[in-house]
Structures are given as C-alpha cells and as structure tokens.
C-alpha cells in the first residue's frame, strides 16, 4: 500500500481511496469500546465507501500486533492481544463470581440455543432457579429468542453479541468443541423414551438439533 501522505483525502470522483477508508475504520474502531458493524461504520463514512473491505485490510494490518481487529458476531472491534493480558492488571474489571448453576446454564444455552427453560432443566436435572436467568440477562450474555412452536409456545434463550465479545468468539459457531459435541449427538434434543408421542420433541419445527436457527445468518 502506498504511503498515505501521497494520497489526497478524496479523489476526483469523491470516493476516498481505500487507504483513506481504512484510516477511517481504524479511527472509528479505536474510538469505540463496543463492537461496530460495517453498516454502522459505513453510515458515518462518505458516500460510496466500502467499510467491509476496509475492515478486512485493517484486520490484516493488525495481525500479530499488540492490538488486533477481531470479529464479534456481525460486528468488529479492536481488542488487546490475549498474550499481553499480563500487562493490564490495572485494567482488570472485577466481575461478580458466577454460580456453577449460572455457568452451566450459560453453556447449555450457548451450545443448544435456542434453548427453553424446560430443556435447560432436563439437561441439568434440576429446576432452574430464579435469579440464574436474571443474572445472565443482566450481564447481557443471554436474551430472549423466538418462541418455540411447541405447545405452550415457551420462550427460548439465545446468547448475545456481548457474550461473544466477552469470550472472544467470532460467532456462536466457534464455541469450543461444538462440532465434536454435535457429531457425538450430545446436542440432539432427544426425548426420554416413552415420551415419544405428544412430547415436545416431535413438534419441533425448529429442526431436531439445537443450534439450528440461530446460525442461519
């Protein structure tokens, strides 16, 4: 890429050169603590800019650097490189310690999403306590998804962008071990034997496995 100083801020045709667009994306991502979508960035850039392409350039530029451009769901953010965490002791945000129930519930929602309360309880074998869901909602790590098309139309839970951001995941596809778990059938919604007919399992229009609809994006 040629030096930025040689290129005028805008070309004759009004669309800034890609190097300039990359600078803009860089400035916006640096200025924001929250992930930004390419669309949100494009909305602030001059007409005709391609924020998507610019962010790809920027991402390559920051590979191996002290900060990296990372994908968070549909959005982009700059985050410090994980190996440098030791330098940031003073920046550590103390988070409330999550209960084991909350951690397991979060994992179940992430791997089975969209997941209903009944499914979470079925997997853990205990009732889901008040407060556990509330805590995860308040952390903004889960949100309500689409209602399940089964009797009672129960609400479902799915994980959020903040969840992906917190755990450094590009998308819910990248959950550790997801494909192995799926291959082993451990993410199937398998009804207890004898519950075959009339049970919730077969009216599933969402498909037999969890994780289906969310990844349609």
């Amino acid at each position, binding site marked *: 890429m040629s030096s930025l100083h040689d290129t005028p801020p805008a070309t004759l045709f009004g669309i800034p050169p890609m190097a300039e667009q990359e600078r803009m994306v860089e400035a916006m991502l640096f200025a924001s603590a929250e992930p930004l979508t390419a669309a949100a960035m494009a909305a602030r850039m001059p007409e005709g800019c391609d924020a998507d392409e610019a962010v790809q350039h920027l991402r390559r530029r920051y590979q191996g650097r002290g900060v990296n451009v990372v994908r968070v769901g549909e959005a982009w953010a700059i985050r410090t490189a994980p190996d440098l965490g030791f330098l940031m002791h003073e920046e550590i945000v103390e988070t409330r310690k999550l209960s084991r129930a909350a951690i397991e519930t979060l994992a*179940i929602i992430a791997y089975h999403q969209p997941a209903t309360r009944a499914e979470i309880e079925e997997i853990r074998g*205990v*009732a889901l306590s008040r407060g556990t869901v509330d805590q995860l*909602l308040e952390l903004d790590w889960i949100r309500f998804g689409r209602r399940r098309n089964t009797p009672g139309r129960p609400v479902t839970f799915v994980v959020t962008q903040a969840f992906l951001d917190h755990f*450094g995941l590009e998308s819910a596809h990248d959950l550790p071990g997801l494909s192995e778990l799926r291959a082993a059938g451990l993410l199937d919604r398998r009804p207890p034997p004898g519950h075959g007919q009339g049970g919730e399992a077969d009216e599933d229009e969402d498909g037999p496995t969890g994780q289906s609809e969310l990844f349609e994006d």
Partner: protein
Amino acid sequence: MSEEPLHDDATPAVAERMAAEALIVDVDGYEGPLDLLLTLSRSQKVDLRRVSVLQLAEQYLAFVEHARSLRIELAADYLVMAAWLAYLKSRLLLPPDPAEEGPSGAEMAAHLAFQLERLQAMRDAAGRLMGRDRLGRDVFARGMPEDVGRSRELRLDATLLDLMRAYARLRTRDEFRPYAFDRTEIYSPEAALERMRNLIGAQGDWARLESYLPEGWRADARRRRSATAATFAAALELVKAGSVELRQQGSFAPIEIRRRP
C-alpha cells in the same frame, strides 16, 4: 424426569422450588440427582458410554438409604429419582413382559446414560468456555473511548428489562385492584323486581315470563340473558312474597306467571 411438570413453569412452583433448592444444598453439595449420579458413575472408572446403569442404580439407592439412616432429609427430586431407578432396576433384572407397554428397561437405561454423558459434556464445555481469554480479564477494550466532536444528541433509551419490568409492575398492580364487575350489559334483579311489581297487578291471566322483559332487552342475546335471569329471580321473590304464581309444563317449556288470584 423433571421435564413435564416443570415445563414452561405453570407457576405453582417457585416457592416450592426454592425450598427444594435449599434442601438440595444439604445433600453434600450435589446439584440435583443427575449430578449425584454423575459423581457416582465416576467410581466405575469407565467411559460414560460404558457405564453400568444397573450398578449405578444400586449405588444411588444405597446412597439414598445411607442418607436416610443418617436422617438426612432428601429433597423430593432425589426420592423421585430413587423411585425411578428402583423401577428401572426391576425392568432390567426381570425378563421383559411382552404385555407391558412403554419403553424397555434397556431403552430407559440408554437414555439415562445419554443424560449423564450430555451433562458431563456440558460441564466440560462450560469449563472450556470460562477458561477462554475473557474481555476485561485477559483481553481489553479501549480504555479511553474518544469524545471528539461532541455533538450532543439526546437519545431516549430503554432496555428490554425496563420494558418487561414496567409491564410486570402494571400487571401486578392489577392484581391489587378491588373486585369490580366489569360487564355493562346487566339488568339488575332490583330493577326487575321494581318493574314486575308495577306490571303484575294489571294481569290476572297466565303470561309468559319473557313478556315481562323490558323494552330494549329482548333482541341482543347478552342483554336478553341478563334480563331473563333478573326477571326470573324477581318472580321467585314475588312467589315467596305470595303475590304471584309460577308454572312450567315440562322441562325447558316456557315459564308462565300470573297474579295470585
């Protein structure tokens, strides 16, 4: 096991659940029967897929017995599981009865093994998730989000929680509302009695009760129903007072009324 009754929380449960949870904590820190079974299965030192469900059932039942002998009060969930495992054990041990409906012992055992494996898998997954480089602990966001070019735009905001809380607040307030009759198309028995008293004096022959319905209360079904009920109640009142007679020729036949001769 806990699937159907807990389904989509039909409400009676919260207080019970909290009580149950309090008990669960007392059972040596196990998070429910499945957790206990998972712990017991480790003593078999085999892959979860090869776990002997029969042996596991026996271990669990022994545990429950032991807890009882120590007079530890077990939460209902544990006892339900114990009953189920005792049943499963009998299904596994006895030759299958061809007449019996429902899943076979082997199917039930296989499902239990699946549940255990799945719970373990979710635990492992949760562990790996929590062990990742995490924002605010290992990886950091911009510490100084910039406020260049301050353009003050006032934006009104609300979260989904705000919205739901507001609705919950409104709806709970409703529960406090004093009882009130919300229907408007009501003809009161008092009005009917007043009207009957005035009319009945003029008529000595049998007449259908419906003919006493007031004007405007005959066409619309809801109004007619209300007026009929009120008029009938008023008629009974007048019979009791001895001023009129009622008769009906058969079931569902028209009710007739006349002034007592």
